C-alpha cells in the first residue's frame, strides 16, 4: 500500500497491531467470571502462564447479586459464589488485578474500563463478552471473544483474526428532542437487520455522532453486535480526550498520537450507509431480536415471516396494537448499554417528583460502584426511591438474568438493555428495549408513552 493512500481509522488501528498476518497484538484484556474459568483451567493443564498480567484486568459482574452482598463468600446462589470465588482465585494465582464483589471499583466490565481510564484511544481491547465493542467509542478496536480465545490471549497477548471488512455509517441531520443515542442505534439495527453488519468493523461518523457525549457513543458502539458487527468505533476528538484525561490509568496530557486517529479524507470502505438522524424517533422493540423495532408512534407490525409470527406469539402481541397501549409489569434501567451516570440523570429527571404506576415494579442498577456512589452524591438514589424505584447495587443484573434479578414467565419488561431474545430476562419473559428516558416514563405511566409529548405535557425539559 502506498504510504499516501488514505486510511480509515480501522485501517490505522489494524496496521499498528499486526504482529504477523492474521495475528493481532492485544493492548488490554478484560476478564469476568463467566467466560474465564475454563480458560484458566486450560492454562494450568498446559502449564502455561499469563503473558501480560499488567495488560489484563478482571471484575465480577455477570452473576453478582445486586442486593449489596458484600463479598463473594456471602453470595447465596452456590454456583454463582463458586464462579466469583474461582475468578478471584485464578486472578491471584496468575497475578491479574481483580475488582470483585466488595471493591469500590467493581462494576460491569464495559463500564469500569472507560471509568478507570484503561480504555484509551488507539488500543486493541478484547473481552470474553460480545458487548466489548463498547470500548470502540474511544477510537479503539474492541472485539468480543469466546473462552478459547480468552485462553489464547492470556497465554500469548495476541489473537488470531483475519481483517474484517470495513463499513462506515454516516449520520446526517440532527437528533430531535427526546431522541437519544439508544434510539439512533436501535433505528440503525432496524434498518440494517440483525445480521446487517456481520463480518464488518463499523465506524460511526457524522455530526450527530460527534455531538454525542462519550456515554452516548458507548451506547451506540455497544449494540454493534446486535447487527452482527465484529467491532464498532468512533474517531476520538476533544470530547474523548476530555473524558479520558485525568482518570486513574490515563496519561496527564493528550498524546499527539491520539490526534492522528481519524479516517483520512478519501479512505475506502467496503460498504457505506448514510442515515438521516433527524428522521429517527424514540424506538421500542416489539419482537424477540433487536432488529424487530418500530417508532413509539407506530403499531405492532403485521408479521411477514414465520419468525415474525413466532415472535408475536412469544411476546403476546397482536399486529395493529399501538405501541403506546402496551402495558408493562417491570422496568429495568441498567446494563452496559445504559447504566452510566448520564443515563441515570436523564431517567431521574423524568421521574423526579412522580411515582411509579401501581402495576409496575421498577429497578435501577447502576453500572458500577463508582456510578452508584456518584449518583448517591447527587441525590439521584433518593429521586428514584421517592418515586418507588428499587435502587440496587452494580452488575449486569436483569440484562441477562444470571443473578436473582429475573422477570417471571409472561411478565412484560421495558428494559434499557441490549437484547430482547426469548427467555433472556427470564424464561417466558417479554422484553422491550428502549432508552432510559422512555423506560422511566413507561414506569410512571404503566405503558409506553412518546417521551417527546409526555415531556412537553409534563414540562420536563432538561436531559430529555
Amino acid at each position, binding site marked *: 500500500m502506498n504510504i499516501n493512500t488514505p486510511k480509515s481509522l480501522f485501517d490505522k488501528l489494524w496496521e*499498528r497491531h499486526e504482529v*504477523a498476518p492474521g*495475528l493481532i*497484538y492485544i*493492548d*488490554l484484556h478484560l476478564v469476568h467470571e*463467566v*467466560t474465564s474459568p*475454563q480458560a484458566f*483451567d486450560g492454562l494450568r493443564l*498446559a502449564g*502455561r502462564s499469563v503473558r501480560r*498480567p*499488567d*495488560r*489484563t*484486568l478482571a471484575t465480577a459482574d*455477570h*452473576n453478582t447479586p445486586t442486593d449489596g452482598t458484600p463479598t463473594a463468600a456471602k453470595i447465596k446462589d452456590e*454456583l*454463582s459464589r*463458586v464462579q466469583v470465588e*474461582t475468578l478471584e482465585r485464578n486472578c491471584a494465582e496468575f497475578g*491479574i*488485578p481483580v475488582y470483585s464483589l466488595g471493591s469500590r471499583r467493581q462494576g460491569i466490565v464495559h463500564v469500569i474500563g472507560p471509568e*478507570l*481510564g*484503561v480504555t484509551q484511544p488507539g488500543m486493541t481491547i478484547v473481552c*470474553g*463478552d*460480545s458487548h466489548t465493542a463498547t470500548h470502540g467509542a474511544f477510537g479503539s478496536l474492541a472485539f468480543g471473544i*469466546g*473462552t*478459547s*480465545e480468552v*485462553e*489464547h490471549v492470556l*497465554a*500469548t*497477548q*495476541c489473537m*488470531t483474526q483475519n481483517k*474484517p471488512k470495513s463499513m462506515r455509517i454516516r449520520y446526517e441531520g440532527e437528533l430531535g428532542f427526546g431522541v437519544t443515542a439508544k434510539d439512533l442505534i436501535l433505528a440503525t439495527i432496524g434498518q440494517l437487520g440483525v*445480521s446487517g453488519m*456481520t463480518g464488518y468493523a463499523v465506524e460511526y461518523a457524522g455530526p450527530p455522532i460527534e455531538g454525542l457525549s462519550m456515554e452516548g457513543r458507548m451506547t451506540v458502539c455497544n449494540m454493534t*453486535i446486535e447487527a*452482527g458487527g465484529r467491532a464498532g468505533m468512533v474517531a476520538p476528538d476533544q470530547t474523548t480526550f476530555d473524558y479520558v484525561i485525568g482518570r*486513574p*490509568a*490515563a496519561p496527564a496530557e493528550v498524546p499527539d*498520537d491520539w490526534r492522528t486517529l481519524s479516517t483520512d479524507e478519501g479512505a475506502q470502505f467496503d460498504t457505506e450507509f448514510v442515515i438521516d438522524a433527524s428522521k429517527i424517533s424514540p424506538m421500542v422493540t416489539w419482537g424477540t*431480536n433487536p432488529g424487530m423495532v418500530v417508532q413509539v408512534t407506530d403499531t405492532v407490525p403485521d408479521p411477514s415471516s414465520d*419468525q415474525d409470527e413466532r415472535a408475536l406469539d412469544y411476546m403476546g402481541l397482536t399486529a395493529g396494537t399501538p405501541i403506546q397501549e402496551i402495558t408493562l409489569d417491570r422496568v429495568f434501567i441498567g446494563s452496559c448499554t445504559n447504566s452510566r451516570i448520564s443515563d441515570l440523570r436523564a431517567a431521574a429527571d423524568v421521574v423526579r417528583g412522580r411515582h411509579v404506576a401501581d402495576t409496575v415494579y421498577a429497578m435501577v442498577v447502576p453500572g458500577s460502584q463508582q456510578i452508584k456512589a456518584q449518583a448517591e452524591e447527587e441525590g439521584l438514589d433518593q429521586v428514584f426511591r421517592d418515586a418507588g424505584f428499587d435502587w440496587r447495587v452494580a452488575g449486569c443484573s436483569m440484562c*441477562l*438474568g*444470571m443473578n436473582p434479578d429475573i422477570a417471571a414467565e409472561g411478565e412484560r419488561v421495558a428494559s434499557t438493555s441490549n437484547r430482547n*431474545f426469548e*427467555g*433472556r430476562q427470564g*424464561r417466558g419473559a417479554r422484553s422491550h428495549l428502549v432508552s432510559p428516558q422512555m423506560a422511566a416514563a413507561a414506569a410512571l405511566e404503566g405503558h409506553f408513552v412518546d417521551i417527546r409529548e409526555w415531556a412537553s405535557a409534563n414540562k420536563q425539559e432538561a436531559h430529555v
Partner: protein
Amino acid sequence: MRAIETITDKVSILNRDDIDTDQIIPKQFLKRVERTGFGEFLFYDWAKEPGWELPQRQILLTGRNFGCGSSREHAPWALEDYGFRAIIAPSFADIFKSNCTKIGLLPVQLAYSECELIAEAGEAQIDLANQEVRWPGGIASFEIDPEIKHRLLNGLDDIALTLAQDERIGAYESERERQGPVTTAL
C-alpha cells in the same frame, strides 16, 4: 482438539433463522466452571415445546445467522457435547463461528438453495480436505480459511501455534508497543 475427518451422517434439521446463543444454551447453565456436560441443556426451553425433535446426529442443518448474540462458547460446547461435529447453515454469526473452529466443531456455509436440497436428501457427507459437501444427487463446495482448515484437519492447538511465534511477539513488544495503561499499577 481431535482432528476432523470426513463426516457422514443423516442431518438433524432446525429450520429457523437468527437462532441466538441464548436459545442454544440459556444463561442459567453458564454458571458452571467446567467445559463439559452442556449437551443435556442444549435448546433447553425450545426442547420443551410440543413437537420438538432434534435427533442426536453428527450434522446439524439450520437457518441463517446461526449463533447470533452472546459470545458464550458454551453454545458450541453444548452442540458438540450433544454429538454434533459440523453445522451447515446459509450464514453464521462471527463470534460463534470463530468459537466453533476453536473446539473442532466445523461450520459449513452453503447457499440457502443448497441447504434446502440437503434437507430434502436428509443426509450429507462433509469432506473438509476437499471442501465439499456431498449428498444423494448433489454436491457443493464451501469456503474456509486455509489456516483454520489446516488446524482442524490436524487437530492442532492454536495457542501452541501462536507461541511458536514468540520471538515475533517479543519483537513487537519491544519495538512497537506503545505506552498504555498498566493495570497492575492502578
